[in-house]
């Protein structure tokens, strides 16, 4: 599949359209049934007053509960997918994901400390603590691996695994000394949960994600070359070390940002890049935007399922992504081995 600008724009527009459809369906579904017709009537103004058909309760559910959750799910899904593409490319390993450098564990330690200390009562402090954890992890991993001027990819991977397991041990420790209802909060955070999404979080997260994704997209073509081998990329004119460093830091930061508001939602950053690569090929000029845009819909669908599958009880969305993701991962492993 050969990529050109027209193709990228066209496919992107289709995926945006898919997201809009998914979002509207998702708004209409849930414990309190609003109904698709009613939603559409409200949106397209089929009655003179666009909101006449909606009761106050409807509006609260739509605008205060479901919409922020859908938007945040979309942002998180898109970010993890884009970040996954970057990590897979830089490590030249289709089984890498955004958490491969231990960011998830580092964020979790921050979040858990906030929850346990009771600081979590003010709703922005869990994200803040979690993001600090992510930053600490990134600095540690890059510090350990980046001796001087050059990142050795394997060293980086090992550093990530080691820092990650160290933080995992701390998570175990913290979980084992926590007993009351805070344990429930911790577990939901660890599995990835979007039920408490707020507009404030969206407003804070969005600029980081947009800037990060732009930086990444500017390096889409160098990523193609890096994927085919670092020496080859050098010989084709790419400043490999600079690009790798910049993109690793950018992808890690936006991952840290979204994890801080959503918890550790697994498998999205692994599966979406894969599915997109299977369908659209490996050219990052197409792969990055389609992964981001498909990631929007993907996590919204997963979160909607999490909301309604055993309603009125809501599952953490991470449970859904893992249930679908793990078998897919095994399939990929088997395929690679065979």
């Amino acid at each position, binding site marked *: *599949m*050969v*990529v*050109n*600008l027209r193709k990228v724009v066209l496919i992107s527009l289709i995926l945006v359209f898919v997201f809009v459809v998914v979002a509207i369906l998702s708004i209409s579904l849930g414990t309190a049934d609003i109904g698709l017709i009613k939603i559409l009537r409200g949106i397209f103004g089929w009655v003179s007053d666009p909101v006449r058909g909606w009761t106050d309760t409807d509006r609260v559910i739509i605008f205060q509960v479901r919409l922020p959750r859908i938007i945040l799910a979309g942002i998180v899904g898109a970010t993890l997918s884009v970040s996954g593409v970057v990590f897979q*490319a830089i490590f*030249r*390993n*289709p089984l890498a994901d955004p958490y491969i450098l231990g960011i998830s564990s580092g964020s979790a330690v921050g979040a858990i400390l906030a929850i346990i200390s009771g600081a979590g009562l003010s709703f922005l402090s869990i994200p803040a603590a979690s993001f600090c954890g992510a930053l600490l992890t990134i600095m540690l991993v890059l510090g350990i691996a980046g001796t001087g001027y050059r990142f050795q990819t394997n060293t980086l991977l090992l550093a990530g695994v080691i820092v990650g397991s160290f933080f995992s041990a701390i998570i175990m420790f913290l979980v084992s000394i926590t007993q009351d209802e805070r344990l429930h909060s911790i577990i939901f955070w660890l599995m990835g949960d979007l039920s408490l999404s707020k507009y404030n979080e969206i407003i804070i997260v969005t600029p980081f994600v947009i800037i990060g994704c732009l930086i990444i*997209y*500017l390096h*889409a*073509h160098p990523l*193609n*070359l890096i*994927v*085919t*081998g670092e*020496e*080859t990329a*050098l*010989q*084709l*004119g*790419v*400043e490999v070390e600079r690009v790798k460093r910049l993109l690793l830091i950018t992808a890690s930061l936006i991952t840290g940002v979204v994890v801080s508001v959503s918890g550790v939602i697994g498998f999205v950053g692994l599966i979406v890049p894969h599915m997109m*690569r299977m369908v659209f*090929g*490996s*050219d990052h*000029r197409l792969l990055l935007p389609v992964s981001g845009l498909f990631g929007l819909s993907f996590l919204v669908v997963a979160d909607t399922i999490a909301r309604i599958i055993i309603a009125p009880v809501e599952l953490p969305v991470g449970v859904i992504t893992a249930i679908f993701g793990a078998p897919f991962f095994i399939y990929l492993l088997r395929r690679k081995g065979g």
Partner: protein
Amino acid sequence: MDMIRVSRVSFKYVEEWVLRDISFDVKKGEFLGVIGPNGSGKTTLLKSLNKTLSPKEGDVFINGTNIKEIKRREISRILGMVPQEASIVFPFSVLEVVLMGRSPYLGRLSFEGEKDYAIARDAMEMTDTLSFATRSINELSGGERQRVLIARALAQQPQVILLDESTAYLDIKHQIAFFDLIKTLNQKEGLTVMAVTHDVNLASIFCDRIMLLNKGTVHCMGTPGEVITESNIKEVYEADVLVDTNPQTGLPRVTLIASSLSDKGSRSKADAAPQL
């Protein structure tokens, strides 16, 4: 004018010097062969020319300019390199891989245009790879894949092509076809070629000059007749060979001597046996 001038270059990865104080010139339009045993520094030397590696000491000049002063992107428009092999994990199509050769000419966010496609197509035609343009690079045989990498280097439209044992995995037909192609480009388009190879006979047939490397230094450099002699080979490779004249070309021809089959060899083997 010298296309490439290497001045007192030394290189080490960690402790041991792989290249020691190497100096030589490559003339414009020349076909230079580089031979030498494993670990003599052939590949390292090649990679020092295009900034894949940075020499610890000494300088490399391209068209008279020190490569330290030239941007990587600029270098990649002048020097194309065909690696020994490439492991491309992700499923790029052959055409996509060849088009990557155009990247030194592409803007940051731009896509390949008509001209780039035309150049890629030409490169694929020359390397006999056009017929599997849409297949994934991962599905190809080693030889087919190698030809794709050659096409990619040609798509760079370089003035110099660096070959790093590029034909090591090709069968005889494609080895000859490949060197014929490079020789044609060398003669007709004035492409400068620097080819690292293990195949001393191929070097003898195609190269204007040959450099014989030994333990990171230039053992000798000259025409095939000057370099490929029994004594040079014996000294550098520590292997017994027979060098005679190829009746077709008048160039030196090397025949390997298996020590287990020759009289001299079996004797030395017998002498060595008690030590085992």
